[in-house]
Structure formats: C-alpha cells, structure tokens
C-alpha cells in the first residue's frame, strides 16, 4: 500500500542551526501538508502546498520556516534557525485531490522527531 515516507526519523541539532526535513508524499496525491506535534500536545497545522505554492499557513509558520518541492517526488520543510521551542514531531501528510468533503482525509507519514539543544 502506498505510504508517505519521512526522513530523518530523528534529528538532534543545536539551537540556531538550519534543519531540513524531507518527505516523499504518495505519488498521485496533489496536496501536501506539514503538521507538528509537541510532546503531549495536539497535532498542529503548519502549512499546506498545492501546485508548487503555499495554499494556507498558520501563525506558527513564520519567516523561519519554508517549504519546497524541489522535484516531482520530494517535499521539504526547512527551519532556518532552530529554537528550543521547535523541538517536536513533524508530520508530513498528503491528500489525493482538492480538499472537498469527499477526499479530505490525510495520509500521514511516521514523522521526524526534531530535538533542539
């Protein structure tokens, strides 16, 4: 069964360093998302991406964050200068087509755990 894959599974970095989290969405999906989950907290929306541009972003997704789809398969989240509070599990997700009620379900990857020291 097709799945969303994420790398790395765990990354430890020093505060102020740049981090890139990578995702390979399901191949025929058109919408891509990043969510994050701080330990013990709820899953929070960061950004959605369609047709090579951002569709929607949350207040969390400030200038330190960027997303890119550099080729036909990868979808990346970059954090330019990490802060302690960026420590969280970052989930990539994809969905098949437009976010209508018929196809609103998201397929999540297993996550990348980011630890900022």
């Amino acid at each position, binding site marked *: 069964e097709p799945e*969303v894959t994420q790398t790395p599974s765990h990354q430890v970095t020093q505060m102020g360093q740049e981090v890139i989290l990578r995702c390979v969405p399901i191949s025929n999906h058109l*919408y891509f*998302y990043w*969510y994050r989950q701080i330990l013990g*907290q*709820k*899953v*929070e*929306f960061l950004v*959605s*991406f*369609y047709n090579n541009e951002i*569709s*929607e972003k*949350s207040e969390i997704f400030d200038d330190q964050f960027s997303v890119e789809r550099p080729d036909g398969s990868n979808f990346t989240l970059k954090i330019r200068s990490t802060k302690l509070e960026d420590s969280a*599990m970052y*989930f990539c*997700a994809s969905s098949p087509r*437009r*976010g*209508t*009620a018929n196809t*609103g*379900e*998201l*397929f*999540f*990857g*297993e*996550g990348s755990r980011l630890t900022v020291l």
Partner: protein
Amino acid sequence: SQKIEQNSEALNIQEGKTATLTCNYTNYSPAYLQWYRQDPGRGPVFLLLIRENEKEKRKERLKVTFDTTLKQSLFHITASQPADSATYLCALGANQAGTALIFGKGTTLSVSS
C-alpha cells in the same frame, strides 16, 4: 478562535464493551469531521469521515455520529479489543482546497482484557 474538546484525556474500558468518545467544538462550522487513530510515536491514521449533512457513519466496529446543532461528534468502538488501545483524534475540516485540519488533543483509550 476555534476550539475542539475531546471529552477526557483517558478512557479505560474492558474488552468486549463499547467505547464512546466525545468531540465538541466551538466557533467553527466544519464541512466535515474526521477521526484518526494515533499510536505512541507514530503518525495519525485516518479512520472515518462524516460530512455536515450526514448524521451517522459506520465502518466495521466503528460508528460516528455528527450533530451540527449540538456541535458534537460521538465515536463508538463496539466489541472493543486490547488492540484498539490508542489515542483517538477528532479533526475538523472546511471544504476549501488545501485548508488545514484542526485537531483536538485526543482521548487515550485503554482496553483491558
């Protein structure tokens, strides 16, 4: 701002019983509501979607109801099994393309044998 509350953080039941989880929301009119399962350290897994114009949806041992007047969804697992032990997340969505799903914090269900 939008708020989602899931009835309790933890629910403990015995194997074979029906688990009922509640999701209440305020300041939002979702086009649909979804339920996900999340195991520790894993990504959420989609279970069921119910639209605003639907009252009830079933899938195997799962049943979801959606009352837009009460702004509430109930999620039932019948004949529960220890393998059903996980955190269950409620999420609200709009019809617009590429919009965010708003998640609740989840209810952790423990089914004992």
